[in-house]
């Protein structure tokens, strides 16, 4: 993107879409446990995640593009998580917040999923039990960068892709 003169700029459409997307995520908090309380801290007055353009917290999967899984996911919850992920429209990203969501945490137990990546893809893992709000913010800002990188990677892979029956 480059600015020409004072009032207009030229860009590619998908670069513009990326730019808009990464600066106005609509997060879906999938909060189940203690980490959800720290998520609340992050959106509350003191830390105020809205400063980065994330204030439209949506509880409906159909309206959101960033899922923040905050808390332990048990085997009983797993089908629900999967279903909600599937209901989100593409493109979508997932942040796994806290040790439990990343790996099951210190619950190596009969009813706890050992990391949500058993069932859904994860873009950013935020460690901690619970992660501090600063940690979560850092993680979420990483998603911004990932939006750029993903798109570039996608473009590259399209260019290199051979026609289906070439070989």
């Amino acid at each position: 993107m480059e600015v020409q003169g004072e009032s207009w700029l030229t860009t590619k459409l998908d670069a513009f879409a990326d730019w808009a997307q990464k600066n106005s995520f609509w997060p879906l908090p999938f909060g189940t446990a203690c980490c959800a309380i720290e998520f609340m801290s992050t959106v509350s007055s003191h830390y105020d995640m809205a400063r980065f353009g994330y204030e439209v917290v949506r509880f409906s999967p159909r309206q959101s593009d960033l899922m923040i899984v905050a808390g332990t996911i048990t085997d009983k919850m797993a089908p629900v998580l999967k279903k909600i992920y599937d209901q989100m429209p593409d493109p979508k990203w997932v942040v796994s917040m806290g040790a439990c969501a990343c790996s099951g945490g210190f619950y190596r137990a009969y009813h706890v999923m050992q990391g949500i990546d058993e069932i859904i893809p994860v873009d950013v893992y935020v460690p901690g039990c619970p992660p501090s709000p600063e940690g979560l913010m850092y993680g979420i800002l990483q998603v911004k960068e990932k939006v750029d990188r993903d798109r570039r990677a996608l473009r590259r892979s399209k260019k290199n892709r051979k026609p289906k029956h070439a070989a």
Partner: protein
Amino acid sequence: MPPELPSFLARFPAGSVVPQTGAGAPVDQETWVVRREVLLDLCRELHASRETRFDLLLEIFGMDYPEREQRFEAVYHLYSIPNGRRLRLKVPLAASDPTLPSVIPVWKAADWFEREAFDMFGLVFDGHPNLRRILTHEAFQGHALRKDYDAAKRWILTEDKIWQPRLEAPERGDSMFERMTINLGPSHPATHGTFRIVALVDGEEIVASEIEIGYLHRCMEKMSETHTWQQVIPYTDRLNYCSSFINNVGYCRSVEQLLGIEVPPRAVWARTILSEFSRIMDHVVANGSTLVDCGALTNFWYFYQCREEIYGLLESLCGARLTVSACRIGGLLADLPPDFVERSRRLLETIPPLISDVETLIDKNRIFLDRAVGVAAINGEEAVNWGYTGPCLRASGVGLDARKAHPYDLYDTVEWEVPVLRGGDVYDRYRLRMLEIRQSLSIIRQLLDRGVPEGPFVIDDPHVALPPKDACYNQMESMIYHFKLIMDGIQVPPGENYGFVEGANGELGFYCVSDGSGKPYRVRVRPPCFPIFSSFPTLIRGHGVSDVVATLGGLNVIAGELER
């Protein structure tokens, strides 16, 4: 000296009710061993008789002793509010036939507790109307808390197996609406956690509902059995994670009683103050989410500011904000920071204005009054029968508070009172918490005025607490003690103990059983919000769907504690 036995015991056949006395008997509270044939009759008598009046069923749970002839045991903890007396009943059961009668006719609180004992141990309660799994999922096989169940053995739940309730309620002739079943949760913004409420509505009115829980069953009790006594503390943090410090205190107190040790005054002082701060944190979340759900979002920001301030204090002590693990068996994890008193005093100044702001906005607010007054009301007698404790019980007119009834730590040395309201509805539950916050602040102020007691922050006993760091580095003996404590853990003598504190939600109990090995044989948590939530379908019957949302926050059901 054991308390008098009630006279009605003479009517029961000899040997069917045996009070445990003498060597080997539990010393923490009166315990009777009961044969299952007489259990229901005995419970009826205990509940109704003038002599005993055991009106509150605290909990029911199972125990598993594979080496015993009668492998299982169902344990009942009873409490008499008028007499302030506690009683434990133990019902031994053979592995071949673990059935016993349900006590739901006596205490409604038994409903979910019996389901839990069925789920975890496979005990079968005859006469239970709905005996199915409660914590684990539908595809789960086996009974997880039995000693022969592998702690890490998982079962996968697929979507087709998910439980679908069939709700029924008698048709009314005059209804103009079609019946509809609606589903709230387990992922729903208003549930503040993970429960599923399925309601049958007639127009706007709920005529029947059922609750499914267990979406956050993290196997805390099983995990405790695989760790040392000290290592259980972080697990207790994550019970009621809104006030984790109180959980730490409850657990540590129970183990300390089992060990028979005294905590130094400095630690007791700090524990009392931080427990009260945690209570404030918990109450503001409960009230804050009630208000958010009624559309009053601003208050949440005010309330949350209180939490942030208190987080700062906790962080200066232990480095963590939410999951503090700040207690150790025998004291605290570290000495108080030098500016502890100063910081706490500053909090006493910052918190009251925030609370008053909310009171000004809400207490007489027409919109909130319309949403809250008379909604989901429950009277005192019913509440006791459902096993309520804590703020929800006190909002219904029963002034039971473990801090007053059985004072521990420093609660009997300060002046404070137990607020009681009579409405038992959403509004009174909100008001009661506000009143309690003020009491907590007053307790803290009095303790701060007394000054920090001098002395160590943790007991000076190398078999319980780690020696100071420089001693570990410089003295052979201390290093050995350190090594032994880290590798083998605290050696708790065999025995059992029920220790309790007044948690933010009600009586939080830890029943600890030791077999003398370095690990707990069993840590059983009495979750205060478990029986409260079990009454939810009764509370909301006849109300609208929007009232469900308004009610949930005020009950303060915390999934971590509810499902452990």
